[in-house]
């Protein structure tokens, strides 16, 4: 109960009005879960309650996140065919973390429907599962079968859990305020003023953005996982050195794991997965990736980003069938380059700017925007540092970079990270990129 109140307080501090929304979503899914559990032998009723749960969640998500996108595009479409549309976009505030908690809540009712999970009778436990503050606003998107039992049973905080939590938080904080926010100092001016920059600058800015978004998001995940672990709750790993992936499917098994497995289990497989022939597999991959792109935000750049990754995965699928999947350095480099190209679309303000950047990159120009050399130098050095630190522990759970055999080494590196944050941390209060999703 304490944790639930803390979670609601934390969320309410952003905007208390949206507490009602999260409580509404929680209550609907809790009741639907119970009803589905009660009518195990009545398939039609089960389906009805599942339908209510999914539709209500999607309606909430659709209204708050996509209404303006669809209205805007409808107006554009009607006007392009000569019809004067008398429509206005709505003044809607996007609730923080809505994509995360609706997906998490929805997975519960689907699991109950599938018989993989027994519905909980404890409302407050379920409410905490939906609103658990460390991962409420940017994941990892937890599954009920993993998180609910941990909430329901009595926990005892262990010293080892506590210290592991502290280590993860420290590493996450370092990645966020030193690396991600440091790189943003270069990336933001370039992507905000694309018309004044040229090829080499875009290459560096895109390279920096790839690590900015990785450190921003995985840094948040580290903090969330660490915070939960300090309280004795184990959250799932969300990243596993994604830029060391040897092919694009490998990348998706390492990047935002909680979302990619969610999309796989609740969208790709129900669509048929790879069971019904080549063409349908390609269709299912593309639908999954397109919706995965759209999940990130109501903008065509995200849709294109999803489509690009869909294309990559399909090609990879074909190559896999032909036994041509690279598992070596060439594969890692190629995958990284492909992902870099996709980040241009993810980061650009709109599609035309993204295309301008792509065109500029292929139109070489030696002029390079430095701005402040300390920012560029810190950017490159910090990327090398995080790479070396994480590659060292690639097989350790959660990439706990401070897991040394010697306690002295652990302390030395902990102090190094703390002083790194003090000396090189950006304290401008940049919010996490994934909060907007």
């Amino acid at each position, binding site marked *: 109960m304490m944790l639930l109140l803390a979670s609601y307080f934390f969320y309410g501090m952003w905007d208390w009005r949206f507490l009602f929304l999260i409580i509404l979503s929680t209550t609907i899914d809790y009741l639907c879960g119970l009803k589905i559990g009660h009518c195990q032998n009545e398939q039609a009723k089960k389906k009805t309650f599942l339908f209510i749960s999914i539709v209500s969640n999607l309606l909430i998500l659709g209204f708050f996140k996509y209404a303006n996108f669809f209205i805007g595009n409808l107006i554009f479409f009607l006007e392009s065919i000569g019809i004067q549309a008398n429509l206005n976009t709505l003044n809607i505030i996007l609730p923080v973390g809505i994509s995360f908690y609706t997906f998490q809540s929805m997975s519960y009712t689907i699991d109950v429907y599938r018989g993989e999970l027994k519905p909980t009778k404890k409302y407050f436990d379920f409410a905490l599962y939906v609103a658990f503050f460390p991962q409420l606003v940017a994941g990892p998107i937890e599954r009920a079968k993993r998180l609910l039992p941990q909430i329901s049973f009595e926990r005892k905080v262990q010293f080892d859990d506590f210290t592991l939590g502290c280590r993860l938080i420290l590493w996450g904080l370092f990645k966020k305020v030193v690396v991600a926010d440091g790189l943003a100092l270069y990336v*933001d*001016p370039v992507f905000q003023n694309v*018309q004044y920059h040229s090829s080499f600058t875009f290459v560096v800015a895109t390279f920096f953005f790839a690590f900015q978004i990785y450190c921003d998001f995985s840094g948040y995940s580290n903090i969330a996982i660490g915070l939960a672990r300090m309280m004795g709750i184990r959250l799932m790993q969300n990243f596993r050195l994604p830029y060391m992936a040897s092919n694009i499917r490998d990348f998706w098994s390492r990047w935002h794991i909680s979302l990619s497995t969610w999309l796989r289990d609740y969208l790709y497989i129900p669509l048929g997965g790879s069971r019904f022939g080549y063409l349908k597999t390609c269709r299912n991959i593309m639908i999954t990736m397109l919706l995965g792109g759209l999940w990130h935000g109501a903008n065509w750049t995200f849709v294109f980003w999803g489509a690009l990754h869909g294309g990559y995965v399909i090609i990879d699928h074909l190559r896999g069938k032909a036994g041509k999947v690279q598992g070596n350095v060439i594969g890692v480099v190629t995958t990284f380059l492909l992902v870099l190209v996709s980040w241009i679309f993810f980061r650009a303000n709109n599609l035309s700017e993204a295309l301008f950047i792509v065109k500029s990159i292929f139109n070489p120009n030696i002029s390079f925007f430095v701005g402040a050399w*300390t*920012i560029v130098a810190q950017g490159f050095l910090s990327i090398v540092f995080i790479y070396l630190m994480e590659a060292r522990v690639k097989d350790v759970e959660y990439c706990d970079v401070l897991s040394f055999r010697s306690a002295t080494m652990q302390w030395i590196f*902990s*102090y190094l990270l703390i002083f790194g944050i003090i000396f090189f941390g*950006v304290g*401008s209060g940049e919010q996490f990129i994934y909060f907007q999703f």
Partner: protein
Amino acid sequence: MRKNTFKILLFILIFFALDLCVDRILSQWSKKTNSIYTKFLHKEPEVVFLGDSKLRSSINPKVLKENFGISSYNASFYGTGMIYASGMQAITLEHYKPKVFVLQSMTTLTDRGAMNALTPFLNNPKVYKLLDIYPYYVALRHRLLKSSKYNWMLLTMVKRLFVDYDLFYGYVPRYGAQKVDRTSKKEIPRGAMLDFGAAFHDYEIPMDQLKVEQMILDFVDESRAYGVKVVIVAQPMLYGPVDDSYYVFKRIAEEKGVLFLDYTKKSNRVTALKEKHFNDPIHLNHQGAKIFSQIMGEEIKKIIMGQE
């Protein structure tokens, strides 16, 4: 349980001990590498230039020395405002009395470089008071973590090991002419290439207009109390409107009877400066600096001789 509690307490204790040690070491290092400390204050130049990056790249003290026999130091620092100028005034007057302070008409809206530039001088009570203007969390962090005031200073300090800033008495030349938009061949709008607002993090703070005005008034009064003349200079610019601070400085200069040297496009005072003399719309390049230093040298010579 006891053992674990002891471990945590020991970790915290060592951290604070390290923090103190690191602060002491960096404090010594920054004084050694800080050009203002090592060169300027000990050489006691007659004229001290105080401004931001615009003045920093446009006044070459070597020209003043060679052509007019005036010793000067360009103590301008990028991204600064009146906090920095007031702090430097206090630091200078603590050491010696220059003949003239040349104060640039700087932005009165924000200040983002003062903390970095003035960090080595925090033991000066006035500087300490000036920096207290920062938000509570910055002040709290500084009190709690002594070494936190070196945030982003460390890289600059490392850079100073390799780059001699005093080569030109504080002046930092810029090379190359103004850039143009590659696609439309238009001039780059002011601010587009300079959008590094966040680079100085939480040290970039919006300024209270009334407080800034009071700072300018105090600057003039305190300088006069020490017998130091003050000149306010509005920098040449290639195009674009002058910002609000121009009018604030101009008004105060009129009120206090301070010489206001207006070199903005508005005044049409500098005809010798052409587009090729600008590195960007608001910064002169090294050729422009040579011309502008000559112009300023003539004015300062008159001031020192008591003709103005």
